[in-house]
């Protein structure tokens, strides 16, 4: 996964003519290419982080990019805990962020 959009004519895989998909990110349409993951669309649109850590409120987005680290979680069409790097983007998908208040155990 690349953090920028690669022009199809520069792609050594020589893909077929790209088909656009549009997902709705926090209410705003964001366009990508059919076959991209939700994380791929977000990264290509210039977004590197979409949640924060519990303790230090540090920014997090894609870390491993292969479904292991669970750093890139988003909601898709109302379902939480979806790994953005593993979910293929489909036209009209409503992607939201789940950066809710986390526990203060012992408080």
């Amino acid at each position: 996964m690349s953090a920028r959009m690669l022009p199809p004519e520069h792609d050594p895989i020589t893909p077929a003519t790209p088909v656009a998909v549009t997902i709705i990110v926090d209410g705003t349409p964001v366009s990508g290419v059919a076959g991209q993951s939700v994380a791929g669309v977000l990264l290509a649109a210039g977004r590197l982080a979409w949640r924060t850590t519990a303790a230090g409120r540090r920014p997090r987005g894609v870390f491993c990019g292969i479904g292991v680290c669970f750093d890139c979680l988003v909601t898709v069409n109302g379902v939480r805990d979806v790994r953005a790097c593993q979910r293929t983007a489909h036209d009209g998908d409503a992607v939201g962020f789940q950066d809710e208040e986390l526990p203060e155990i012992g408080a």
Partner: protein
Amino acid sequence: MHSDAIVIGAGAVGAACARALAGAGLTVTVLDAAGAAAGTSGQGEGNLLVSDKLPGPELSLAQHSLTLWDGLQAELDAELPAALPPVEYERKGGLVVATTEAGAQPLLDFAAQQRAAGIDARAVGIAAALELEPDVNPAITAAVHYPEDAQVQPVIATEALLASARARGARVVLGARVTGALRAASDHAGRTGRLTGVRTTRGDFSADNVIVAAGPWSGDVAAALGASLPVRPRRGVVLVTTRMPHRIFHKVYDADYVGAVESDAAALQTSSVIESTAGGTVLVGSSRQQRGFDAALDLAAVREIAAKATRVFPFLAEAAVMRVYGGFRPFMPDHLPVIGPDACITGLWHATGHEGAGIGLALGTAELLRDLITGATPVLDPVPFSPSRATLEAAA
């Protein structure tokens, strides 16, 4: 270099023993085949429980250990640099619930026995249980609140105990696996000479006292030193969910957990132990299974743990499991740790066999062992924990 004492094992129990012995003025060397908290101590939940124990010597050791844990952070703060993180000790409290009609009365009877032994075990009604845990299944049939149940972050706690031992002069040698014994010559009657040290993959180490605190590997270490100790590994697995808003406030157990702790069965057993972490994940345990040191992922155990957890917290059916981890607990055939001198070999001591309770029992174990080695009068009666006890001879 010669030491007064060698501690084999840099887990919570070994680290606590090293710290206690160094505190009594002994020169101490800690040896570990891998690293600090690399075994059982880093593969559990850091539970310090009284709720799962019947009145008896183990409960007395747990109660005494808890009072020591209460004071530990202040002691560490005085000894160690401020940069070290706190051990995250917290008396969070436990809530044990019965999920079947048949399970209700045994849970309440169990709590009554514990109250007689001085445990704060409060039988609460269903409505009160729902106030403590609003998302618990309202179909539960009984509930007991244990305000004394506590937790620590076991890896930080182990590292902090080791750092404290070092500050008191102890030496820590990691990556040194014990391969054999150093022995004094046999006496005229042909009796084996006392233990004078250990051979390891990183050379020989001599000492007046050698303490085996190697958790589930203690049986192998004891065998390498010519002793027999019936410690066996028992596998336990824990599920970790993704982070979520805080909906679980205590350690919450299904009452059948106590039965699994006390059981001898080798086959897979599971019972619910559920709690939130500071990071927002939920830890869902637990399983017990004797399968040697086989660490392969057991999907049957994962399925059963997940299914049972939804019986206690129905909302967990929607939760995503992010990871599964497991570890080996040092199982004893009579469910008591061994703390004291070896039955046969002079100079050899044991501090092991705590099953899933070693973090909680570590501080009391260390104090008891220190008093036995230095000849001080122990606070607790050491006889029930003796490696020479009859219930172990029968199992050997």
